[in-house]
């Protein structure tokens, strides 16, 4: 028996003993776990599952053990995921901390910062949000103007962030702030960690075209941030910011696959058969069938490309721009085809005349419009591919 087989058995035994029964059933949205100081657990087994997985470090399997992670290598991580998938285990923790911040602290942070922040992220004790965009800085993120003035032992932060997901629920924020007002715009930015409980921090939710959303505006009014919360060197935060965006893009690119990202999880072929009818088991309307086939074929080829990228072991790079661009455009396309297949049933807003599932698809259609804007617009991704992959001139 080789090491990996032994590890698989160990994982299997551990999961058998520690994954509570209700955590092996499909996730329901109200039971999703994001952790944090103010987390509420509708299902107590969610908390148990989080604590057990967090204790093992398996919420972040590839982060080193000394910082609370699982300390697993690539192959072991794969085995863990396979075993979790095998028993239909729920994701124990959704976390911007794990997906985006932790890899950056590992790469750029001080030893003290790693020991202070990463274990709490992994155990789900502290919930993080991301403070990047500002009302005046969207695609041109580096023009941001939230300022952090050095006044001795701390920074004084003033300004406003926008599109801060779950700012109203998060405990801490990782933010880009301007520390060098006289430097060229990319060279005056720092990466700062701020406790949301600090006096002067406030948030306000944003309503989208699709209705309620997790997005907020976040305001900083004379907020004091201790200097030890600066990650990396002052005025060199842009490098960290770019790295973090790659992690975010990799995450968002899964949107292109059915079932990934923002959506209702509905399968387009089933929807089409239900609302357009079936003839001999086929989608009855041939034009819709053709459009949907094209879409599904592109999805198949895109899925194979994500797989190939994994098999090649490609690091997060310009390829993440391709995945972000293609995946989000594809997801938008899916919902356009979906509501088209549903006809007037795809246009419901409330439950007067429409089922819950129908409304969910209409809302998801509207929500997908933001996919190709958030995390860097499609146009910005195409610029990145042109410049960094194809080496086309500025």
């Amino acid at each position: 028996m080789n090491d990996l087989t032994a590890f698989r058995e160990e994982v299997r035994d551990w999961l058998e003993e520690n994954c509570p029964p209700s955590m092996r059933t499909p996730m329901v949205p109200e039971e999703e776990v994001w952790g944090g100081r103010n987390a509420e657990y509708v299902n107590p087994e969610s908390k148990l599952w989080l604590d057990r997985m967090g204790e093992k470090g398996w919420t972040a399997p590839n982060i080193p053990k000394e910082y609370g992670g699982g300390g697993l290598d690539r192959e072991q991580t794969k085995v863990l995921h396979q075993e979790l998938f095998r028993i239909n285990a729920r994701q124990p923790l959704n976390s911007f901390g794990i997906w985006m911040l932790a890899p950056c602290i590992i790469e750029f942070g001080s030893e003290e910062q790693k020991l202070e922040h990463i274990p709490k992220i992994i155990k789900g004790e502290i919930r993080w949000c991301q403070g990047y965009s500002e009302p005046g800085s969207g695609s041109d993120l580096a023009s941001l103007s939230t300022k952090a003035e050095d006044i001795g032992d701390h920074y004084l932060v003033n300004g406003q962030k926008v599109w801060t997901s779950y700012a109203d629920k998060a405990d801490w924020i990782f933010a880009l702030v301007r520390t060098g007002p006289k430097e060229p715009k990319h060279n005056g930015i720092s990466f700062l960690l701020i406790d949301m409980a600090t006096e002067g921090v406030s948030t306000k939710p944003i309503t989208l075209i699709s209705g309620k959303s997790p997005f907020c505006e976040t305001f900083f009014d004379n907020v004091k941030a201790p200097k030890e919360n600066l990650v990396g060197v002052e005025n060199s935060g842009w490098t960290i910011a770019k790295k973090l965006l790659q992690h975010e893009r990799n995450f968002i690119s899964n949107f292109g696959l059915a079932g990934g990202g923002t959506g209702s999880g509905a399968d387009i072929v089933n929807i089409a058969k239900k609302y357009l009818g079936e003839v001999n088991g086929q989608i009855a309307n041939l034009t819709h069938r053709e459009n949907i086939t094209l879409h599904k074929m592109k999805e198949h080829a895109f899925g194979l490309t994500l797989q190939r990228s994994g098999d090649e072991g490609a690091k997060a790079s310009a390829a993440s721009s391709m995945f972000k661009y293609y995946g989000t455009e594809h997801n938008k396309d899916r919902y356009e085809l979906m509501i088209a297949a549903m006809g007037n049933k795809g246009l419901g807003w409330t439950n007067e005349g429409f089922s819950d599932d129908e409304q969910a698809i209409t809302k998801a259609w509207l929500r997908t419009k933001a996919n190709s804007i958030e995390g860097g617009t499609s146009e910005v991704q195409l610029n990145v591919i042109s410049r960094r992959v194809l080496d086309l001139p500025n």
Partner: protein
Amino acid sequence: MKLILSEEQQFLKDTAQSFARDKTPVTHFRKLRDSENAQCWDGTIWKEMVELGWSGILVPEKFGGSDFGMAGISVIMQELGKTLTPSPILSTSVLGVSSINMLGSDKQKDDYLPKIVAGELTTALAIDEGNHHDPFAIETNAIIDGDHWILNGKKVFVVDGASADIILLVARTSGKSGESNGISVFAASKDTTGLNITKISTADSRNYANIEISDLKLEQSALLGEQDLAGETLEKILDLGRIAISAEMLGNTEEAFEVTVNYLKERKQFGVQIGSFQALQHRAAKMFCEIELTKSAVIAAMHAADENSNELERLSSLAKFQAGETLHLVSNEAIQMHGGIGVTDEYDIGFYLKRARVAEQIFGTSEFHQARYADISGF
């Protein structure tokens, strides 16, 4: 199934790349096109490919081949596609070998395969009869007459049909057009009486023929495998052909794209490189994405063939569809982005457009494979 190449496959690809660069750059194709060479490929070059073992990549070891599989031959075709290298590799080493190996008796394999490996025989698979690829729409018929077969009908757009020593004829021995049952495959020598082969002249200046079959008399031993039962195997043989030509089309695409991107960096207008214009950059970036998708579809299909996956049909159709759509896009954009010189015969980029449209037709267009994919998937 991992979507990467093994060391041996990568080695074959590197060898093919050097071969195409050194021996058959695009000037080689141009010279052939402008010559009187009726077979449209160079016998000396084919002999060198044979010496490298490329004719026997799909042939089992006991018949003298290397049995390197579809991944092996696909990466070679991809590299040959980059420089538009004409050769009988698709018609002989993929379609001929697979037909004989998958349908034929041991005796037939012994008769043909070692000769193919040695470069002594080339073949062509004659299947289509109409304006569009439709593998079971076979009206050419074969009937038993005493101890002989008598064939009548016609074949069109037969790849390498104008040069092949052996024509593999798909004929109907029972049933009616459109049915998979009742199809049989026969091997006939090109100069048999009753076989009237006419070379046709196509935009890509490659080798295709129309064949009139009138009272063609063949020995019983000309039948490959069993009577009436070739239909299902033929689909698989065609799938291998589709994957191989998809790989070649990927190579066509990669080269046309690279040449175009380089041109965007060189060409100056309004005092700047035209590649600095966002209108062109975004179109180039979108092509890059489609090419990445094509690479994935092709590599998945060739590995599926080698692993005998039950996804072979779907992946073969996906590969031919995606390769066709991408080559279509890139060959058009390549011309447009080159501007005036792109439409001159003196410049090579036009060759890729002409080859593209013909290759798109071979063994089914994107439309054909989209319909097939939808049917297999139950949409």
